[in-house]
């Protein structure tokens, strides 16, 4: 039975729209539907009433792989070696390591009371990207994939992109799994490389349009007998996807979306001539072309001392290598988005999978800390220039207004106009909340940000 038709039927009848009244007249059987159909309608109607006009149309996530030290950046404390500085928002202070961002504080909100439950990289990635703790019997869809699924693709450009490709062991934490591979991100290489080009989106030089036709002709002959005898629903799908893929490959707009060389050199300098900077720039370009979700992964390169996982020499790494790049790039991104009038519709988030320990260890480093940490977000309808929540005097535990990953997701979904109470049904039969918070509850959007 067509659900939409039933909703319309219910609406046109001169019946009260409230569920209980609907039932008092015993109307279920009158409408000729059964219980599960009724409940499906009820959910759809309730969802419709919760539908908001979300401002956000796209999101750029600066993924600070390894876990940045929150007390040395967003939540300055006395146990940090660094001083705090004021920002262009009176009353808000951040670490002296972020001077350029301090001039854009009005665009950003800082959450200082983030709480998560996994203190290890792999599991932390999983937890912060899906809202669930990892399980050997189930795979969970990531935030980016859910947003891709709940919004429509635009302009034929890939709706979900990750740049550059993260450590291969972590790829699956950013994927869609059972909700459908079509919402998986496309992984592109480091745009800071001189010979940057997208594998799989650009035909080799020797493969011209003529050759594509030649290949199709051969394929038609080769597969004809088989496909006539063994008919299979998937065959049609393969054809459809190949057509779409070809369109994407041949599309000028898609090629342009990924063509970072078209950006003026001066702008490329402002973002920063490093992986983070150029990736953020291409993210802006992609969002402009219609991509919905871009994850900029600040590459977790083992052993080069370049990643955020500063178990040793924490201060040196943050001060000399890590934070300056982020400072430069984040400030550039915010300014650039504002200049192009994209900031209202583009959310920017900067976070890692956890924070770092308030205490320095014997190697001068800080270790993983998930009990209380910070992140920053702005744009896409998020109200900037404010701080949410508080940590204790050492930045060790939340002292006020805890925000869980579920709450964070609910906030992001609400900004997009997505119903954050939605549940997806895993093939195993278990309903999974898209904004999963603690104790099997749904997260609550942080209203102070909306």
């Amino acid at each position, binding site marked *: 039975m067509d659900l939409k038709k039933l909703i319309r039927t219910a609406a046109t009848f001169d019946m009260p729209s409230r569920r209980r009244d609907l039932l008092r007249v015993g109307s*279920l059987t009158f409408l000729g539907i059964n219980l599960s159909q009724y409940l499906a309608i009820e959910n759809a109607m309730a969802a419709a009433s919760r539908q908001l006009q979300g401002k956000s149309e796209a999101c750029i996530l600066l993924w600070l792989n390894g876990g940045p030290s929150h007390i040395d950046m967003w939540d300055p404390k006395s146990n940090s070696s660094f001083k705090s500085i004021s920002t262009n928002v009176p009353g808000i202070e951040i670490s002296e390591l972020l001077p350029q961002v301090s001039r854009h504080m009005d665009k950003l909100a800082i959450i200082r009371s983030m709480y998560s439950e996994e203190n290890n*990289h792999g599991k932390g990635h999983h937890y912060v990207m899906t809202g669930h703790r990892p399980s050997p019997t189930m795979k969970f869809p990531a935030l980016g994939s859910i947003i891709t699924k709940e919004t429509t693709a635009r302009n034929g450009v890939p709706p979900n992109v990750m740049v550059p490709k993260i450590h291969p062991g972590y790829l699956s934490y950013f994927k869609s799994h059972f909700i459908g591979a079509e919402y998986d991100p496309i992984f592109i290489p480091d745009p800071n490389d001189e010979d940057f080009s997208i594998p*799989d989106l650009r035909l080799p030089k020797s493969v011209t349009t003529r050759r594509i036709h030649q290949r199709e002709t051969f394929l038609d002959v080769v597969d004809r007998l088989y496909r006539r005898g063994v008919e299979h629903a998937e065959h049609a799908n393969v054809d459809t996807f190949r057509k779409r893929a070809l369109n994407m490959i041949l599309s000028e707009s898609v090629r342009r979306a990924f063509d970072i060389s078209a950006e003026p050199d001066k702008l490329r300098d402002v973002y920063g001539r490093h992986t983070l900077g150029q990736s953020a720039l291409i993210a802006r370009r992609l969002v402009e072309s219609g991509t919905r979700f871009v994850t900029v992964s600040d590459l977790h390169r083992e052993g080069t001392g370049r990643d955020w996982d500063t178990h040793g020499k924490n201060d040196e790494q943050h001060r000399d290598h890590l934070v300056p790049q982020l400072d430069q790039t984040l400030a550039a991104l915010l300014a650039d988005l504002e200049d192009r009038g994209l900031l209202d519709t583009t959310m920017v988030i900067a976070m890692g999978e956890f924070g770092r320990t308030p205490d320095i260890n014997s190697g001068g480093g800080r270790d993983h800390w998930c009990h209380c940490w910070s992140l920053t977000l702005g744009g896409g309808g998020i109200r900037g220039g404010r701080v949410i929540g508080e940590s204790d005097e050492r930045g060790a535990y939340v002292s006020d207004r805890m925000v869980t990953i579920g709450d964070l997701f609910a906030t992001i979904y609400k900004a997009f106009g997505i119903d954050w109470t939605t549940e997806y049904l895993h093939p195993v039969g278990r309903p999974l909340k898209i904004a999963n918070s603690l104790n099997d509850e749904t997260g609550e959007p942080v209203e102070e940000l909306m």
Partner: protein
Amino acid sequence: MTALRTTSGCSSLVFISFLVFIFVGRAGADVADNESVLSGIRLMPEGVTLVGANASQCFVVLGTYSDGMERDVTDQCHFTLSDTAVARFDMHRRLHPLADGTTTLTAELSGISAVTTLRVADVWRQQPISFVRNIRMILTKQGCNASDCHGGVKGRGGFKLSLDALDPRADYGWILNGGGFHVLSPEPLEPKEPRINLENPEQSLLLLKPTGEVSHEGGLQLEPDSREFRILLDWIHSGAPYGDNDDDSVAHLEVTPHDVVVTTEGHRQILVTARLSSGRRVDFTDQVRYESLDRDVVKVTRTGLVHAQAPGEARVVVRAVDHVTVTHVRVVEQPVASYPQVSRVNYIDELVLSKLEKFRIVPSELSGDAEFLRRVCLDLTGTLPPPDRVREFLDNKSAEKRDALISVLLDSPEFIDYWTFRLSDLFRVNGYYGWVHQSWEWVRKAVARNRPYDQIARELIAAQGYNGNSRHFLLGDNKPAPVERVVAEQFRVFMGRRLDCAQCHNHPFDQWTQDQFWGLAAFYGRLTNTEWYGDNVVFDDPDGHEVDFGDNGTDGLVFRRVMHPRTKVSVLPTFPDGQVLVEDRRIDPRQELAEWITSQDEFAEAAVNRFWRYFFGRGVVEPVDDFRIDNPPTHPELLRVLATDFREHGCDLRHLMRRIVSSRTYQLSNQPNETNQDDVLNYSHALARPLAAEVLLDAISSVSGVPEVFSGGGILTGAAPPGTRAINLKLPADYPSPFLEIYGRPKRDAVPERDERANLRQALHTLAGTTYNDKLRAEGGRIDELLRNNVSDQEIIEQFYLAAFSRDPQETELLALTKLLAGSLNHEEAVTDLLWALINSREFAENH
């Protein structure tokens, strides 16, 4: 007909009756929708005795037709009773008792009759209504305790019942006191509104809600003038007693038909008979809940009348208290006129054919040699046969060549490679810092030496120290996984059952309780390991302590108990039947559990089912780790016999595989015929299945003649030795490959589930990716060889076909392709494009 009267007062519960068929020739015989002719009728059930005031019986008449079909003709029949003082029919054609005695019942249709004798006894005896006997049954029949209503995890509308009345004591409590279900506490959730009102029975919520007198989210579920309503009301009036435990409870539920075929216009009444523990048989047709799981194929009414909707196969679930059965119904447009004789090789064929025959599906022909060759090579070794071996097999004239091929494959090194790969996925051979080696070696040795599968299972479940696959317990981050996740996974893998949901609450749609789950989880309660880096040894700590490393910046001894999350009580290792593991066996609990698991029937069934799926694309129970009361096997007898055979041969995997691939069923052609075109459940013809990512990549490498280079990217850096095949990679996570990632290679951090659907990234890769471009034309590859040796176009095509499809090209294909090659602007490019087409074809990328 004279009435047969028994002496009054005789209340013998055993009565021998007889069923009489009377055929009265063809005069005025009935004609079915397809012009076939009625040849006889059958009246069911036989030997009915109605005992007690509330007994009743439903009858079904089946007509046999000249087209071989049996059709439900009950509503066309004329029924007569020889003694109308003994029993009467109501307007729904249900028989009720009037007085003790005996009568015959005759059904007649178009001059053909059938007769049965039935008896009435104790017509004045009323049984008191109790919760445990009557109310539980009504709650199940009316669907109140279904999983999407009050039987759901948290109940609904503040009212909770156990699923399918599994916990009558709890249900009685919920009804008497009200309250809702708390996931994290055994206390009922407020508000607590009693569902019955003993002072004012008519005002009980239990009556007001389902009749719509008070608003009920579930709508109208009970008619005020129904028998069920009356029983509920009478029960409340009589003080709502719980009742004694039913000493004459249902021992067995017989559902007829079990597997049945109907035409698209057809219908069939289901008959449910309960055999009580006393031996007495009672009609339960109107006391159970019917549900069609495939409503676009058949629908079923509340009274058990199945109506065909469209051709296909459907499952109808019949639920009574404590018993759930499933009937399979197949709907066909036109039943096949006469069923041919089909040859059979082993018991697999016997059992598959018996269902095919019942369902009027004719299996396809036997596969051709080329088709069989490619299929069995891929299924047993994951490797395409090289062209010269293809030629050898196709030219061989021996009648036993297929069996000989099977033996060769089972003993081949590729067999070991392939099954090491498959089992490494299943057992999640994973881990960092070089520990993966002994896990992988353990799997490989087990395959190479054909170690019995139950022994493999025991070695894994009880793995200790550094041995075998003890790494399996370190869920990716070198610390032991939480017990609930370990037990859920191991049950899925070895018992084929998804306990997972029972972690937080009683399973929402199967019969596992939360207590059972945690009792099993407790067997893993001592699992721990020594150190994060260095020698990470897995063991069961006799004290049950766990050392906490580094997370909080401190070392500390943390006692690791297994605690029930709702009752907050420490749980001891307990088997599902409630038996607690005795104290002197608690040093090595995982060993005890391993022995228990591997001795269960479920273990053998889950194992054969899982391996069956590798050869047919679908388990007899599907998904293979989801054995569930309402997910029945399509061929229960087949599963049972396979499991018995497996056990009798010491859980020998090669023996099982040989049985499977030697059967005629496995060797059927993939070309469907008219009767089996839409069949995907009954093995009437071979179905195409996509190749696994690793097998596909290896196949592309072998056809193109260009080996894949796997360079390391992780801890074990460095390239894999040249010529390493994808199925041989020990630790996939350390050998990233865009192709494998796009085609869904699993990460081995969860039970293997490959998404085999086409997607956009695959399509992009086939057009622009390196695998489908650079790899085809590399130096030293097959194209290179062929072109350098100036081989003719015809021979190029033949070589490619042998390599990729294991067959010769057909005349039409050869003609068309040579023409294309000859007419191309650039010959070399054209040959490359031909190869591109071959590896992109569905014929190549699928196993058929």
